[in-house]
């Protein structure tokens, strides 16, 4: 009987645990080496293909309603001829302290035991709060019911649902691939190994700038890269604790040939 109460007490105590999970099953993390990224946008198309992102057309693009879950931001410094251009791929950062999650009134977005910031499309009522609270502007909204002219719809990935009108969506770290990898690992009776999972963007990246893995696994590539002195996280000062780690771009100290 006392065991029962202890269990209850333990459970109640866990409800006061910040973030609830004392230990995540995995902590999926993406490491993006900005020194490797050359901004070619292969990842963007890959994301479109994998996640059934609709093409919205020029007018909608003009209203900033393009669907790319992953975008390459480009910043330009200086004037001709000393122009410095910098690229950064930005997708959902899967913040551990995500502002969007607290905003949603209906739990359509929450944090799961894999350390993922999860969006449940069919629960979403479309209050936009998550997107407004998102400090990275990575959430995309289904403004209309998007149609794929026949036979383009044959390409749609059956592992990812085609979202309904009025629903918010965002990068999932290709959760369907995580699920498939876990499924396969379970069949083989082992844990998911490092490198088993590659989100579409990481898979297609020509320069190999995007790494993906479990930060909790000390031997994983991402865990090692996460210790790099070049590491930083986007807008870290906002304390959203993002799961995407960027490695700083190395940039010349001016023109060395002038030295």
């Amino acid at each position: 009987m006392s065991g029962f109460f202890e269990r209850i007490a333990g459970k109640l105590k866990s409800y006061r645990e910040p973030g609830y999970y004392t230990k995540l099953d995995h902590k999926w993390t993406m490491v993006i080496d900005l020194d490797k990224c050359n901004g070619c946008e292969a990842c963007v198309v890959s994301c479109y293909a994998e996640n059934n992102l609709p093409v919205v057309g020029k007018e909608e693009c003009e209203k900033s309603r393009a669907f790319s879950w992953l975008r390459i931001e480009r910043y330009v410094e200086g004037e001709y001829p000393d122009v410095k251009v910098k690229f950064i791929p930005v997708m959902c950062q899967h913040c551990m302290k995500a502002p969007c999650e607290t905003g949603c009134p209906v739990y359509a977005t929450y944090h799961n035991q894999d350390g993922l910031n999860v969006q449940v499309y069919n629960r979403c009522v479309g209050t936009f709060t998550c997107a407004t609270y998102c400090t990275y502007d990575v959430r995309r909204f289904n403004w209309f019911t998007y149609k794929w002219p026949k036979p383009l719809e044959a390409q749609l990935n059956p592992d990812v649902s085609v979202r309904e009108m009025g629903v918010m969506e965002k990068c999932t770290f290709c959760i369907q691939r995580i699920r498939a990898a876990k499924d396969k690992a379970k069949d083989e009776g082992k844990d998911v190994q490092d490198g088993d999972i590659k989100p579409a963007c990481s898979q297609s990246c020509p320069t190999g700038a995007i790494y993906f893995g479990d930060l909790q696994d000390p031997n994983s590539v991402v865990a090692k890269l996460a210790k790099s002195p070049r590491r930083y996280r986007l807008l870290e000062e906002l304390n959203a604790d993002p799961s995407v780690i960027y490695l700083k771009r190395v940039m010349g100290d001016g023109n060395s040939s002038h030295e």
Partner: protein
Amino acid sequence: MKRRDFLKFIGIGGVGAGAGFVLGKVSKPPGAKLIPYLIPPEDIVPGVATWYASACTQCGAGCGTLVRVMEGRAKKIEGNPAHPVNRGGLCAMGQSSVQALYNPDRITKPLKRKGPRGSGDYTEITWDEALKTLAENLTELKSKGNSDKLHLLTSPLSGTLDKLVREFVSAFGSTNYSHYGLFQRKNLAFANLSAMGTASVPHYDIENTKYLLSFGADFSSTWVSPVNYSNGYGKMRQGAGERGKLVQVEPRLSLTGANADEWVPAKPGTEALLALAIANTIVEKGLAKDGGAWRGVLSRYKAKDVASICDVSVERIEAIAVEFAHTRPSLAIAGDSVSSYENGIAGAIAVNILNQVAGNIGVTVIPNGDDLGGGRRVDFSKKISTLIAAANADKVKALIVYGANPVFTTPKAAKLEDALSKVPFIASFSSFMDETTAQADLILPAHTSLEDWGDDFPDPGVGAPVASIIQPAVGPVFETKSLGDIFIELAKAVGGNAAGKITAPNFAEYLKSSWKELYSRNREMAAGTLGFEDFWNKTLQNGGWWGPPRKRTATVSARASEHLTGGPARFEGEEGQYPFYLIPYAQTAYMDGRGANLPWLQELPDPMTSVVWGTWVEINPKTAEKLGLKEGDMVNVESPFGKISAPVYLYPGIRPDTVAVPIGQGHSHYGRYAKGRGANPIEILPYNEDPRSGEAALNSTRVRITRGGSGERMVKMEGSTKELGRGIVQTVSTSEFKRMKKEGV
């Protein structure tokens, strides 16, 4: 309550409930159907993805792909991690080939022209009829002894398909089979042929380069083999060894230039001189590995003489030269902006000389040998001008087009369309209604590469023999036919020599037997296999066969220097009237325009400008200020040969005396996504074909910019390009990075 009232209530309630019941019934979604297979395909488990190894044919790079197929439908195309060309990566264009497969604007059936040529008025016919019509035309040609008046114009095909077409054409009795593409890099091939003896682009080992001096090579987006080079670039930057440096010489900052450590905005047309001046400086300073032979030739290109022509300071030229020579191994590459000048060959040769002087040939420049004999052949005598002249002289009685779209990619000044109108019969095998196909009398739509068999021998390769196999991942979506099958059936129908030579029942068999031949010739292939069938199965599984890297070297022959010119490249148009150099460039997504019909690519923001769904004119903000132009203003870009209009994009990464326009939009046909969108800068180019290589110069005119013109608004995805000190893309300096590395943190 009265009895009558009660009854009334009962009645009303009953009717109401009944109506509700009916509505409930009607409003229910119809029961979904569960359609089983009639006969289950062996390798398909519904709900489980199957992966087919294949190769990408969107551009000539020949990346290996894996096609994800579920329930008989291609879902996604990914790079084949085992393939030596792309090692798992795949560019935006390659991944979009699935949208080419399922494109709603594909030609679904053979078509026969009904209205006048170019009207787009076609009637659908059956394949039998189509093949019969084509065969009749060809037979007639043959019977009249006009076999040689059959012209075949295709995209640069390689491997077995090329062999088959060649066989067919020669058996038919024609010599006029030519490859054509806007970015065929014939100048580069010609330069390499005269310098090193192989008419192809060598393998550039970017991965192991520590100092990469790129003359306008946008290898991150479209140049030659972007995925392979990008892979090498990634490893060069953050690989096992020291971080390599990238210096980009080009008048307009390309995507690759944006990633470079240094940008040298040399004046358009002077890059060859700059390369030679660098080489000369290396030789003069005694840093050359092999300088003796070149001292004489190079002495004409002294840094101090060249500096003002190039608009690059002497100090900078010398600094680059010193660093280039000192950093080992280094590499210089000549990209599109250099080889697209009127003296493009000179530029490419100059870069070859620079590599030779720095001792890079055989180290980072590894000449290709066509080990497997399937590579793309570059025939410098086959020019588009030859075709035009022949057509004008009534020497083209039938023209068959596949893959190439010369109407779109040839300057209006060449008057190709007029010439085509003199060709009595044009057939197209394209699956898309592009501008050239729209001129055809008969259209026999061929499969896309995801539905077809084939093989590919990547050019430039990776310094190792590579042969990729293309296998049908899905069944045909429409009533299209394999291109190989069309030729085989045509050979049978035409009869004669062709029928005798081409005996395979279909292209799949033809391909297999061709590989069998290759297998029997090649010892390496045979190693570790149990006969051909085993090899074949493994090849299908792996997506091809590739051998170990081969070390090759060459020496730049001194004779190559005869192609060098003393001054900068010539631009049409007088400077006073036409103050700006025009740089039309291959955009990441559309390349030469072939990507414009794919919605993903249209909606893909341009990496440098973030513009989508349209054309723009890149102008330096200072220039724009002078002209009184704001971003988004419509301007006319006017050359002596014509005028296009497009909105202005203020681009700090371009010389103030230069404007740039991306190639790829401005289609008059080519499906709903491409048609009537943007402008095509090729239209206003002069037709400057190099008589040696047959490549038309793209960067060869000056233009003037005037406000006005009509066209669609520019839509860009970026809000602001200024980071505003928010530390979004953080950087470390090179020296800081070196310290980090040294400390081993």
